[in-house]
């Protein structure tokens, strides 16, 4: 087994007071089919201009955009019911010496923003429910069933079903 490190994520609104307003990024979170080796602020809305195509496939409303000369085709989907998207950042631990704030002793995260929908983009293929990204949401339902406590009723059903098979 791989060993995990200790850490914490505070999801109650960030900041020390825990009551600050959290930025809502609905309609602004994009998942691109590439890695951009850049980390920092960027005038995204001035350059990245998604447009609706007016087409709908499998209930997905198609959008298109261009990035680095490539045409992207995407769709905006809601985060499944009961879940929420979070943008988390490393918590700043007061005025300690920089040397102390190594990754080991500051594995403490806080929520900077939330989002309830996400636009994911494909290069060269129309968005569809066969996309790995949309299929990954299947896990949520599977996990729910797997972790749900087994009730006496379920056992009864299962044994009846087994009885029928025999």
């Amino acid at each position, binding site marked *: 087994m*791989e*060993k*995990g*490190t200790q*850490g914490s994520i505070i999801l109650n609104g960030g900041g020390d007071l825990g009551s600050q307003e959290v930025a809502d990024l609905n309609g602004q979170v994009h998942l691109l*089919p*590439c*890695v*951009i*080796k*850049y*980390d920092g602020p*960027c*005038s*995204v*809305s*001035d*350059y*990245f*201009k998604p447009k609706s195509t007016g087409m709908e496939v499998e209930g997905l409303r198609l959008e298109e955009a*261009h*990035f*680095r*000369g*490539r*045409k992207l085709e995407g769709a905006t989907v809601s985060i499944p019911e009961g879940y929420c998207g979070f943008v988390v950042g490393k918590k700043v631990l007061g005025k300690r010496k920089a040397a102390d704030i190594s*990754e080991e002793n500051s*594995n403490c995260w806080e929520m900077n923003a939330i989002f309830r929908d996400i636009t994911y983009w494909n*290069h*060269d293929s129309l968005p569809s429910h066969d996309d*790995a*990204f949309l*299929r*990954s949401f*299947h*896990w949520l339902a*599977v996990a729910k069933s797997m972790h749900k406590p087994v009730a006496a009723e379920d056992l009864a059903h299962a044994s009846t079903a087994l009885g029928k098979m025999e």
Partner: protein
Amino acid sequence: MASEAALPKWASEPCIMGIDEAGRGPVLGPMVYGCLYCARSYQMTLSSLNFADSKTLKEEKREELFENLKADESIGWAVDIIDPKELSAKMLKKNKINLNEISHESAIGLVANVLNMGILLTEVYVDTVGDAEKYRTKLSGRFPAVKFVVAKKADSLYPVVSGASIVAKVTRDRALQEWVLDETAENMNRNFGSGYPGDPETKAWLKNHIHTVFGFPTLVRFSWGTCTPYIKDLAEVLWESDKMDEDSSCGKKQMKLSSFGVTKSKRKSEEIESSGKGHCKFFQARKLEQLTYF
């Protein structure tokens, strides 16, 4: 689009057409395909209109000739303006479409449109793109009833092609002059120059409109070799779609959250996306991976 009723009287006479392009070489702006057609019986008059290869004419002269031919009821014309975004996108697809193919398709589209309008085309003259004979075979295959003449420098050999080259060139120049940039960033200007890679004004514009993350405005043809020297100054972008080809051969590895200091992974190889490797099929198919370090 001309309706049947608006068809000129000469449309049912045997007609000739010329096709030429403008803006094939530039690093920015649209590529324009233009065509000009008229009755074969008008050919002599056409020769007297002083059309010449548009590149040899001054801008004002081209504009003047364009206005003249627009007013001439014995001449028909049409253009196909191919957006630079479309050029970049096609040339950067997984299955790349090269510029020759794009050019051929544009020319074929023009011929099809004119025929659909009800013009009786019998001969079409085309400036060649790539191998002339292959191009001619392709065109003849699509339109067996039309005789195609595909030649190098057709724009200086056949007045009908010279006319088409004026239509294309003037349209391209105007399109660039009136171009509205998609991008809304400040400090952008429209001093594109001619768009040719060697033009100092174009070079300066490219240099001033480079963006670390986005590269260039969509006016620029990203697939052009001219862009390459600038690309080294940009943030590197690795595509999932490129990765599939390179995966086995070279060391262009993906990055995962760990590279951004989010996690500390013991694994040596960095990956763009989780692969679900080593997990059951359910997770592999969904590219889901458990993250134990966070």
